[in-house]
């Protein structure tokens, strides 16, 4: 038995594992991918900390921008922790060897980002996630060479083992060798990331299916703010891969079919650097108003010139050339909003603790909440580091001060039985069509703008898909690298979460952040809805309740950019 088992090895998971190890714990890391394949590595534009290297800045300003960006739904105590601890965490990463870009003085460079009052985003060209995930893996390897830190690579986490109200382990399918394995620990940290794959158009990797949220939901834990899915304004047409907000941070324009910088009509002060929810809505309005190009708008970098594009945005250029056949030095890039980041997740306190003894969560799977109804660009990488560290420390302290939980073997036996049933089924539908229909219908009916009747229709569609999923067939019956099996399980996760999301969306009869209802409830309603939504799983499906937002200094104001 480990002291701490971390599930997921992206930035939050590895940061948690490193901190738990440094606190003195024996650490196991379970990941369905090799750690460096995790989707944190695809983050591009940067990570926010008020270092003040580019212009005057302060944690207080960072916190206020984040509160306002969250449309006042973020928990302000958590946001202050993020803003205050971010600079120290960035310096730590730099001293571990992270390859950040430098300013003329040789200090860490910082670029402007959406809805930020100061250039606050530390970066490495436009591959910031890549350099972060590699430096964290380097530090993980270093510790594994020194002491008890073991990475269970390509272990697919399927269920949490909770016994007597305490989380004691995670049941995994060993992808390379086959077989269910129970990895046990005194504390478990979920760091499994997001679930963009619920949508057809998404920046997210194939791995992002909401595994941890669904595992927690089915284990009886509350999920918080599940209606808030962020649509990133600049995802490449047609492939959907991310083109960084850093393009606009470096001065890029968004233009419509006529070449008009339309953001001036929606956010006259911030223009292209308004918050993501605002920009995505503006783009959708342009496209639906017939002023788009092939269902997209255009991101114009031409005026930045070749030198700036080649040094600051080489990865974005590579993506545009490879997947859209466009060289941004000479032509604007076709972009449209796409599902990118889920603000909600497993409800935690400011140390990552959930309501189940011994279970913690950090990163996109968790909802502390620092992002509220809309996340600011550059804040998610920072959250993975700061709250990954905090969760790792808290999980280690819990493990080192408690005796092991009792393990009966019943959860593993249940899992073996259910897996046997799934693999034994020979007649039925294969998963792909259900998955594709889920993705298309969610985009259509629960996207940038939401309408009462479309959301009601989506609930029916999800119910139909869930019924079909009851008879889903896994064609591969083998033990070795059976991704047909894990793909079917992931689809099950997404069908649970889609139901939860839409139900929470229907209940929130206001417009706030990423949840926008232009036809029936276009205004924010602080009287009724300055509250988090909380969803729990019951035998009759998801059940909704609410929770107060934790406020410290800032009262809600009208939000404009």
């Amino acid at each position: 038995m480990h002291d701490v088992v971390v599930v997921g090895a992206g930035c939050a998971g590895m940061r948690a594992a490193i901190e738990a190890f440094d606190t003195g714990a024996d650490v196991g890391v379970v990941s369905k991918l090799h750690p460096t394949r995790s989707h944190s590595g695809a983050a591009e534009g940067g990570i926010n900390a008020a270092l003040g290297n580019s212009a005057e800045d302060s944690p207080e300003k960072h916190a206020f921008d984040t509160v306002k960006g969250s449309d006042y739904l973020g928990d302000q105590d958590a946001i202050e922790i993020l803003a205050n601890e971010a600079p120290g965490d960035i310096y730590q990463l730099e001293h571990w060897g992270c390859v950040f870009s430098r300013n003329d003085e040789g200090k860490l460079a910082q670029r402007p980002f959406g809805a930020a009052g100061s250039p606050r985003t530390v970066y490495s060209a436009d591959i910031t996630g890549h350099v972060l995930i590699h430096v964290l893996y380097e530090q993980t390897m270093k510790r594994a060479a020194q002491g008890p830190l073991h990475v269970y690579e390509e272990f697919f986490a399927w269920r949490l083992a909770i016994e007597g109200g305490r989380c004691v382990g995670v049941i995994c399918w060993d992808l390379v060798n086959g077989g269910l394995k129970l990895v046990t620990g005194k504390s478990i940290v979920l760091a499994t990331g997001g679930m963009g794959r619920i949508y057809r158009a998404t920046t997210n990797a194939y791995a992002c299916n909401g595994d941890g949220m669904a595992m927690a939901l089915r284990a009886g834990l509350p999920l918080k703010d599940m209606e808030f899915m962020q649509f990133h304004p600049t995802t490449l047409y047609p492939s959907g891969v991310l083109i960084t907000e850093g393009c606009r941070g470096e001065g890029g324009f968004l233009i419509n079919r006529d070449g008009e910088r339309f953001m001036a009509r929606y956010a006259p002060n911030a223009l292209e650097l308004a918050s993501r929810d605002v920009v995505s809505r503006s783009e959708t309005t342009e496209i639906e108003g017939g002023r788009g190009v092939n269902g997209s708008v255009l991101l114009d970098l031409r005026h930045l010139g070749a030198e700036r594009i080649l040094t600051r945005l080489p990865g974005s250029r590579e993506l545009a050339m490879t997947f859209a056949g466009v060289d941004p030095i000479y032509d604007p890039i076709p972009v449209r909003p796409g599902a990118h980041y889920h603000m909600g997740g497993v409800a935690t306190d400011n140390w990552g603790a959930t309501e189940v003894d011994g279970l913690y969560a950090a990163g996109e799977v968790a909802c502390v909440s620092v992002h509220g109804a809309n996340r600011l660009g550059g804040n998610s990488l920072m959250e993975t580091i700061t709250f990954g560290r905090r969760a790792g420390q808290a999980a280690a302290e819990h493990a080192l001060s408690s005796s092991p939980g009792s393990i009966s073997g019943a959860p593993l036996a249940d899992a073996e039985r259910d897996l046997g049933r799934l693999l034994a089924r020979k007649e039925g539908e294969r998963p792909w069509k259900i998955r594709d229909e889920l993705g298309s219908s969610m985009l259509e009916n629960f996207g940038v703008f939401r309408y009462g009747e479309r959301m009601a229709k989506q609930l029916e569609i999800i119910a139909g898909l869930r019924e079909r999923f009851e008879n889903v067939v896994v064609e591969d019956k083998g033990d070795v690298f059976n991704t047909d099996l894990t793909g079917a399980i992931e689809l099950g996760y997404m069908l649970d979460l889609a139901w939860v999301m839409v139900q929470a969306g229907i209940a929130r009869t206001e417009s706030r952040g990423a949840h926008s209802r232009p036809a029936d409830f276009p205004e924010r309603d602080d009287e009724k809805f300055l509250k988090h939504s909380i969803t729990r799983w019951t035998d009759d499906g998801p059940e909704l309740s609410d929770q107060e937002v934790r406020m410290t200094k800032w009262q809600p104001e009208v939000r404009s950019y």
Partner: protein
Amino acid sequence: MRVALKIWRFDAQRGERALKEYEVDAPDEATLLDCLDIVKDRVDGTLAYRKSCRMMICGSCGMRMDGAAVLACKVRMYEIAEAGQIPVISAMGNLPIVKDLVVDMQPFWGKIRAVTPWLEPGYADPGEKEHVVAQKRMDVIHKESLCIMCGCCVSECNSMEADPDFLGPAALAKGMRFVGDPRDQASVERLQALSGEHGIWDCTRCYFCQERCPKGVDPRDAIAKLGAEAMREGIDSDMGAKHAKWFVTSAKTTGWLRETELVPKTQGIAKSVKDVKFAMGLVKHGKVPPPFPPHVAKHVEEARALYDLVKHDGEQGAAGIVQGEKALGRLEHHDDGGAAAARGPYGPGSFAKPYLPGEQEDAE
């Protein structure tokens, strides 16, 4: 479009290999990875391959297409399909196959771990602020830090095929990432470790790693930089290092390679004794000129001038070699045959110049 693929399947449980052909409908913009997904979804759910980000950054989907390593998510299929080609897809080379297109990456990671792949800053307490380092100095490891550890270079490495213990291009590039980092305090120890057996001098310079790397890391350049840095630190006891040094000395002094002296200078006099008979045979058949008197090239002063130039440029070691290099920035756009570059960003046929609302009249 209609895409046909031949895929080398491998059933690990039965130990059987088979080449199977598949044909599917795919959207025109589909990549090789998209096509594999269509095969797996609609034709054969047992097909195994790794994938995740589908945007060339996670490094999961390395495999071979017609015998050369590629990232499946980077290969657009349109031209291949339109030309009626049926590419053969197989697992990467130099690594054991687990199933179909999935290889066991443990030997790969073992070699990464062997190069002490973390910064050795020489202290425990990081202090209050960041290191101050010029961007230009950090550019020395720009290319090496782009590596996504996909294994495409290792798949193609000829030296590794001959010597499975060779550290290989990915691990050596990772080594250079730290040797070239001004914040690292263990460069000399690193260079000593990498200069040993199975290290930098065992590379045969075939440049396959450089050619197949999907991210422009240029591992062979990294190995060359390590060699230069090792020499600069006087770490030259390996035969490979001595061999390279003799090339230089020979060219500097007489303007051409004195092959007869190459063997003793590389492996030492004592070890060369056993090769004397072989060498005499070569002399007898006129394969090598007699060592005495040394033949001096006609324009030896040109060779010496060249030597001085290279020596001057190389005084900064790796920092001197790589300044200004930008791997991704070097990419060229060929989809349109260079038409966009010819007309420029705002030339005839380009998209209109952007304007702010209300500015339209001024713009026109």
